C-alpha cells in the first residue's frame, strides 16, 4: 500500500504542476504587451572580462592557491548572475518574437522568426552554461568558458534590434556599426 500512497501523492503533485503551467500559459498570452519592459540590459564588456581565460590565468599566477579559489568562486557567482539575466532576457525575447510573428508584414514575421530561433539557442546555451558554472563552483581550478553565451547574446541583440527597427522605424536604432 505504501507504493500506492507514493503514487497518489506523485499524481496530485503532477496534476498541480500541469494545472499551474496551463494557467501560466493562458496568462502568458494576455500579458505580452508589457513584456519588452522586463528586459534587463547586460554590460557585455564586464561579462567578457569575467569569462576571460587570460584573466583567470593572470589571477592564478598572482594569487596563492587558496586565495585564487576564493576569488575564482566570487567571479563564478558573478558570471552565474550574468548568465541568469541573459537566459531570462532570452525567454522574454522568445515571447516578444512569437507575438511579432503573427504580423502581416513578411519582413517583420521573418525577423521575428529569426529572433525566436536565436533566443531559443541562447536560452539553451545559458542553461548549459549555468550547469557548468555550478559544477565549476565545486572545482574552482577547472577551466570554464562561457564565450558562446556572450557571442550568442550579441547575435540575439542584433536580431532584436532589427525587429525593433522594422516594427518602429521612428526609433533611431543604430545598426550601421554592426554591419
Amino acid at each position: 500500500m505504501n507504493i500506492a500512497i507514493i503514487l497518489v501523492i506523485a499524481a496530485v503533485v503532477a496534476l498541480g504542476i500541469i494545472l499551474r503551467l496551463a494557467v501560466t500559459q493562458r496568462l502568458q498570452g494576455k500579458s505580452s504587451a508589457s513584456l519588452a519592459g522586463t528586459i534587463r540590459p547586460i554590460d557585455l564588456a564586464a561579462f567578457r572580462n569575467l569569462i576571460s581565460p587570460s584573466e583567470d590565468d593572470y589571477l592564478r599566477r598572482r594569487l596563492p592557491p587558496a586565495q585564487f579559489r576564493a576569488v575564482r568562486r566570487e567571479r563564478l557567482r558573478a558570471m552565474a548572475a550574468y548568465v541568469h539575466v541573459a537566459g531570462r532576457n532570452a525567454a522574454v525575447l522568445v515571447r516578444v518574437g512569437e507575438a511579432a510573428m503573427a504580423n502581416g508584414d513578411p519582413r517583420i514575421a521573418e525577423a521575428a522568426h529569426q529572433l525566436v530561433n536565436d533566443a531559443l539557442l541562447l536560452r539553451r546555451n545559458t542553461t548549459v552554461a549555468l550547469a557548468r558554472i555550478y559544477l565549476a563552483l565545486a572545482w574552482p581550478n577547472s577551466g570554464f568558458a562561457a564565450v558562446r553565451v556572450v557571442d550568442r547574446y550579441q547575435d540575439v541583440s542584433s536580431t532584436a534590434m532589427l525587429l525593433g527597427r522594422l516594427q518602429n522605424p521612428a526609433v533611431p536604432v543604430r545598426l550601421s556599426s554592426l554591419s
Partner: protein
Amino acid sequence: MLQAHSFLWHYLWLAPHLLQVVLAAMVWRRGLHKLFPIFFAYLVFEAIEEFTLYGLDVIPSVSPEMFWRAFCVGLIIEGFIKLGVIGELFFHLLQPWPVIAKVGSRLITGTGTALVLLATLAAALVVPDNTHWFISGSHILQQTFYIVECGLLVFLLSFAAYFKLAWDNCAFGIALGIGILSCEHLASWAVMANGGLLDRRQLLDFLNMATYHLCVLIWFYYLLIPQKSATTFAVLLPENNLDIWNRELERLLQQ
C-alpha cells in the same frame, strides 16, 4: 446514488464516448485529423473500445474472464496510442524550432527511459490485489502506463514553459486533457493495483469516468472553439533598452 449499474454509471460510461464520436466526426470535418492523426485514431479507438467493453459488461453470457481479457488487450493498444499522441504533441511543439528539437528529443527519450524503469520498479513492488492474474495484471499495467504518460506530459509542459514556447490552441487542449486524465487515472489505478478501497471500488470507477467526461469536454472546447486573435498583436521593443544594448555593443566593438 453512486452504485455500479445505476443510471449515472451507465451515463458516465457511455456519454463521454458518444461525445467522443461526435468530436471525432467534427475533427474530421474540420480537417484537424491531418494535423493530429494519432489523436484522431485515439478518439476513434477509445470509443470503439469502450462500446465493446460496455457490451461485454452488460451481456449476461459473457464471462468475467472474457471481459478482463478484452480489457487487457484494449488497454495495451490504448496505452501505446496515447504515447503516440504525446509524441505527436512534442513534434507539433518543436517542429518550428529545430535549434532545440535535438536537445528536446534527447531529453524526452531520457525522461521516457527513466519513467519506464520507475514504472517497472513500481510494478515489481505491487502485491497483487486479485487471485485472477488477468485482473491484477491489468491493474498493474494501467498503473505502469499512467506513470509513463503522466511523467512525459509533465516533462512536455515544463519544457514548453521553460523555453516559453507558444502552444497551438488545439495541441494545448489535447495536452491539458490527457494530462488531467493521466494524473487522475494514475492515482486511482495505483490505489486499485495495490488493493486499496477494496469494498468501494465503484467510487474509483465513478471518479475515472467523470474525469474522462471532463477531459472530453476540454477537448471539445479547445479543438472546436476558434482561437482568439488576442496574441497576434506585436510587442514593440522599448527604445531605451535598444539604446543601452547599442551602447554596450558599440563599446565592445570599439575595444
